[in-house]
Structure formats: C-alpha cells, structure tokens
C-alpha cells in the first residue's frame, strides 16, 4: 500500500502554489465585482503545463490523471483563481480518449499547449428516479432542462444555460442527444456560425457562467459512450471538490492568523474555546474532504466502478465544508469579516456559487446514497 503523494505530485502542487501566489488573484476577484476585467490566469496555466495535464504525451500533454488535476485545482481554490481549467480538463479528458479520430488528434496539441482553450457542457447522468440525461438548470415548471439535439449531419441546436467555464473557450464539447435518441458528445468551435456564448456573473466574478446557444451549429461527433460522459460529469465533481478543499484551507489560514493576533478581553480570541473549536471544525472538515479527494483520485484511475461514489462523496463533503469554513471565517473576524475590503467574503461568494453548480451539493449527496443503497440491495439479494 502507498497512499500518499508521489514526489512528482508534491512538486506539481508546490509549483502550482508558488505560481499562483505570484498573481494577485484575490484582489482581482474583488475588483472584478466592480466590473474590472478579471486577471488573465490562463497564461499561467498554459506556462505551467496544466493545459495538457490529462492529454497523452503523444499529443503534447503530460499524460497525468484526474488526481493530478485535483491537486492543481486545490491550489486554484486556495487562491480563488478563475482559470477555466475545470472546463478544459473535463473537455480534454474526453477528447484525449477519443483521439483515435484524426480530427480530434489534430487539435489536441494546441489544446495541450494552452494555445486554445476547451470547455465542456457537463450533463447529469440519470439517477434512480430520473428519466434520462439532463442539464443541471432547473426548469420553472419542474424537472430539468433537456440536452441540445444533434441532427443526422451533426448540426446542434439548443441552449445550455448558466454553465461554468464556458466564457472564453475556443472549442466546446457539447453533450447532446443524437438523432437516434442516444446521448453523445459533439465538438463545436465557438467561432463557428450558430454558436453563441453569453457571459454572466452571479455572486462570484472569478467564475463567470456562460449560456451557450446553438442554432444549427456544425459539430464534430466524438467517439464517447455514456460511461465516458458520466466520467466527465464525475471528474467535474471531483475538481469542484478539490477547489472547495482549497477554499477551506485558505479560510482556515485566514481565521487562524486573525485569531492569534486579535485580542478581546485582554487575550487573543483564538484562546477562547468557542473560536478555537470552530477553527478545529474547519480542520476536521478539511481532513474529511481531503480523505475523500484521495479516494476520488484513486478511484478515477484505479477503481472506476467506485468513481461515482468517490467523486460525489468528495463533492458533498467539500461543498459543505466550504460553506461552513467561509461562514466561520467571516464570523471569527467579527464585523471586519463582512466588509468589502476583506478577503473572507470573496471566498464565501465562491462557496455560495460553486455549491450550486453542476447538480449542487444535494444532488451529490443523493448520488452517494444511491450508490450505497444499490450496494446494500445487491448484498441483500446475494444473501437471499
């Protein structure tokens, strides 16, 4: 057994941390709320080689796995960096697997080098009680939005509303319903006719959302089955979990530093149990999430049958942890923690938005339960 980071992984993480600390991403997160352009951190991502993280070496990438991408995403969360990497990793993961198609193989090097940026519209795999694949966005009358449709010629029509990481992408992997009713993946160029992405900010300016509108847009159908699409969805869950972990760690650091230095009633507030125990609870949730992130990273590469459970668990614990941690960070700071100038609310905004994306925390929890119930029922049936 060996369940720790390899030296290469430690290096990847430390390099990411150093690179991001040189950027003033947190000040940018604040200014962007007032309409200033968000700091471009994609170039940092490209230079660091993250764009090619999950692309095979033969296509110019690093040939690493989901866990490695999670290590980088933890650092992105810690520094509130909005790189668009989540979309890029999920998209290139799928493209890399479909690279036997020459048209795909051709574009991979530019994506691996970060010269072009990819995104993906992640679709929700069916749950026990669902009818089929849907988009995350709820529909006013009930239920969830349906996928775009592809016609026999691969032309796509439909809308994907408020999806993260779409703005700024050069190509998008769109999950759509094919002419036979089967779900598939289709690659579109965002500069092509009939493709339009509208950017909108809700709560967290470091994570602009995009609404993708497709009107008979030409696409390249990709070789991807439902398992590949589900893997992309759960990879998205795992990356968000890792980001949440970084958010927790950053707010713990902020909270601990302040609790050591701020005095009330003649002693540092961190010496009071009420404050101390809340900070320890953040630590406990960090441990919880980190353990599950290890599980998710391990499952992605070595135990795919557990990946749905592992990624959903990590997401569930991570988003709940980030909600608790960012709220507690504000509270520990007293009044100052809720001012515009302070960093704590920026992390809180991130947690507030992220926990509601890609199914949200409750969908993740529901999937965890669904996996366990299925296992338990199988056991009961086997015993009978």
């Amino acid at each position, binding site marked *: 057994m060996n369940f720790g980071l390899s030296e290469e992984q430690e290096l990847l993480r430390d390099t990411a941390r150093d690179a991001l600390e040189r950027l003033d991403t947190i000040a940018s997160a604040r200014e962007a709320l007032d309409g200033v352009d968000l700091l471009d951190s994609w170039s940092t991502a490209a230079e660091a080689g993250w764009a090619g993280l999950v692309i095979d070496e033969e296509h110019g990438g690093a040939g690493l796995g989901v866990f490695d991408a999670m290590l980088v995403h933890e650092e992105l969360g810690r520094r509130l960096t909005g790189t668009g990497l989540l979309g890029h990793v999920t998209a290139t993961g799928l493209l890399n697997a479909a690279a036997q198609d020459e048209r795909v193989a051709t574009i991979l090097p530019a994506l691996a080098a970060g010269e072009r940026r990819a995104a993906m519209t992640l679709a929700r795999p069916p749950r026990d009680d669902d009818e089929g694949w849907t988009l995350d966005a709820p529909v006013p009358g009930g239920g969830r939005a349906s996928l775009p449709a592809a016609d026999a010629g691969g032309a796509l029509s439909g809308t994907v509303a408020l999806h993260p990481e779409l703005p700024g992408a050069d190509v998008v992997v769109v999950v759509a319903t094919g002419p036979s009713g089967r779900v598939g993946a289709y690659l579109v160029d965002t500069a092509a006719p009939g493709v339009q992405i509208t950017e909108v900010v809700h709560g967290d300016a470091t994570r602009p959302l995009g609404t993708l509108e497709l009107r008979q847009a030409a696409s390249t159908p990709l070789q991807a089955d439902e398992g590949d699409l589900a893997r992309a969805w759960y990879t998205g869950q795992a990356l968000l979990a890792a980001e949440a972990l970084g958010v927790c760690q950053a707010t713990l650091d902020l909270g601990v530093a302040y609790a050591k230095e701020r005095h009330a009633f*003649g002693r540092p507030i961190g010496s009071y149990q*009420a404050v101390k125990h809340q900070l320890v609870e953040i630590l406990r949730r960090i441990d919880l999430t980190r353990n599950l992130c290890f599980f998710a990273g391990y499952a992605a590469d070595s135990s795919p049958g557990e990946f749905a459970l592992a990624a959903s668990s990590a997401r569930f614990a991570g988003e709940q942890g980030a909600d608790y941690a960012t709220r507690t960070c504000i509270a520990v700071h007293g*009044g100052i923690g*809720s001012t515009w100038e302070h960093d704590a609310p920026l992390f809180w905004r991130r947690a507030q938005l992220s926990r509601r994306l890609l199914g949200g925390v*409750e969908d993740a929890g529901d999937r965890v339960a669904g996996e366990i119930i299925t296992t338990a029922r199988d056991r009961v049936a086997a015993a009978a």
Partner: protein
Amino acid sequence: MDLKDTPDQAAYRQRVRAWIEEHRHEAPELSSGLHAADPTAFRTWQGTLADAGLVGITWPKEFGGAGLGPIEQVIVSTELRRAGCPGIVDHIAVGNIGPTIFTYGSSAQQERYLGPLLHGDEGWCQLFSEPAAGSDLAGITTRAVAQDDGTWRVTGQKVWTTMAQFADYGMLLARTDPDVPKHRGLTMFLIDMRAAGVTVRPLRQISGAAHFNEVFLDDVELPADAVLGPVDGGWGVAMTTLMFERLALLAAFEELGWSAEDFVEPVADLPAMGDAHVRQRIAELTTELLSLRYSAYRTLTALSRGDVPGPEAGLGKIAIINAGVQASELIVDLLGPAAIDGRWGDLAMEMPGLRSGGGTEEILRTTVGDRVLGLPPEPRVDKDVPFSELTTGKAVAA
C-alpha cells in the same frame, strides 16, 4: 391567554388607525431591505408622526413621549405596517439615544436635544464600536483629554456606525482615564458631527452596499457641557443604552415582520415542495420564525407586567439570523445560481454582517450562560489591570 386588545388598547388602535388613514398620503414609499438609502423624506414623515404623538410611545410625557406601554408601541408599529407606511427612520435615536439622554442628561441637554430627535429634525448616531474593540466594548481606545478650560479634545476611530453619514449629532464613548482598569476610565459625550476633525467614511459590506460607516476623530474639540452622565462613569451609561437597545430590538423584529410564508411564496409552486428534504428545511425555518413571533407576545406581556428584558432576549437575534440564512439559502438552492444576485442573494449577504452586530454570537452565549444560567465566569485577565498595561495585540484596521 389572549391576543385580542383590551378595550383601552382597542380604542387606542382605532385612533391610530384613523390618523394613519387620514395622513398616509403624506408618507414616502416604503423601501425594501433593512436600511434606507436617503432618509430625508422619511425624516419629514417621522416629524409628522411625532406631531401626532406616534413617536416615542414608551417615552415619559415630560420628554415629549406618549407615556404609554410597549403594547401600544406594537399597536402603532403594526398599524403602520398594515397600512404599508414607513415608521420612524431614526430607530437608534428614538430607541437607544433619547432614552439615555432622558436618563442621564442634564435638563439643558434634555431640552436641547430630545425634541428635534423625536421629530427627526436632527439625526443621530451611536459612536461605540472601534476597530480593535467590537465585542469587547470596554476595550475602546478613543481618547478624550480634558483641557484646562474645561473643554475636551478627542482623537480616535469608530466603526460600524449606522447612519453616521446623515447624523447631526453622535453619542460617543471615549476613554478619559487610561490608568485605571478598563471599565472605569470611560466617559460618554454628545458630539456635533459637523465639528472640525470629524470625518465619516462609508464602509462597504459584502453585498457592495454601505449601511455602516467609519468615523475618524482627529483632535475634535468638545465643549465642557458635552459630557453625558458622570465623567469616568461612561460604562454605566453605555450599559443603560444597551438595555434600551434590547427593548428597541424587540420592536425592530416586529417591524421586520418576517413570516415563513414570505419565504416560501417565491418557490411555492415548484415541484420541489414535494421533496422531503426541502420540507424539513422549511420546517426548521418556520419554527424559528413562529417562535420569534410568540416570543415577542410573551415578552410584551412580561414588560407590561413590569419585567425588564434580560440578556436572553439577544437569543432572538440568533433565531432571526438562523432563519434568514436558512430561508435565503433554500430559495437560492431552488431557484438556482441566478437568484444569488437579487433580493434573496442580498438577504443572504446581509446575514453575516448582522451576526456580529451588538457583539458576536459567542459573547452573547457567554453572557447568557453567566447571567441567566448562573454558570461560573471564565477567568478574566483584563479586569483589574490598568488599561494602559493590557495586552491588546496588533490593532487591526477595518
């Protein structure tokens, strides 16, 4: 047990209702949210209300009040809310500052300030908290130094000051003797907010709006008669203010008038209303809000029987923030990320700031444990030490 008015109360309600019916066209449009952006029109309206005896209901008659009880106060608030009219704009002035002035002020101070305060002609703010002294109010460092001619010079910084940008006067707590233990060297002052050396800077909150201010005091001169209550006896004066504040808070909750239905309304027709987990969440916030309503009825009854509200009244603040958080989270969960910007997201963003208003939840729980449950206090390291010798850590700017 009865929620109905007594005959006297019914008659009073009738008079209030009739007056409102007659004058409601003079009232400005009710603003949404907890804080008004520009109070001018609301002040005029407060003057109209004051002329009709509808401000300072529980104030003694000799100071311009109506000399009535808390239930009559609620009758006025309820009737105004029912008619969709705003109430008074200067809650802190009428609820906290005025009563402190009529309790501790000289007759000259009472005559000078109370009338314009009640009528909203002059706005007030309460200058207590400081960057390095929030929950630990006795730890303030703003210095007032007595001059040979009897005047004072004040230097320091205050923070979390509501309405300071519109205030004509402030009630200011400052340290007048740093060489005695912290609770003993404080004095309360009345200060002209337009005096030289006073600078007000709005403090932007999470949501981007600025409901509070920082106030910088740079060698501000105060006349000798600016002292409110005894010199070096400011801690007692401040405690009286906070007692009145608890009473005022009660009325504020009532005026807020949140009910569970308000929060469920925007999502009432979603299929998620059949989701068992969502329903348990609705039950949680409903019980908090219902409890608050009946808590108010019980407290009002106790007040009308002569009781004084204890620190446990502050637990209502926890309840209302819990409910506000739960409600806004639920609505945004159900409506999706787009709802983060808008009424419900704004509400969610207001909650973290409210949490530490008037002391953190932790301080409140400690106070209730000590004073209501009679639990032994924590060892205090700051009680008998001269203020100037206390460790205070790095001062942290807001």
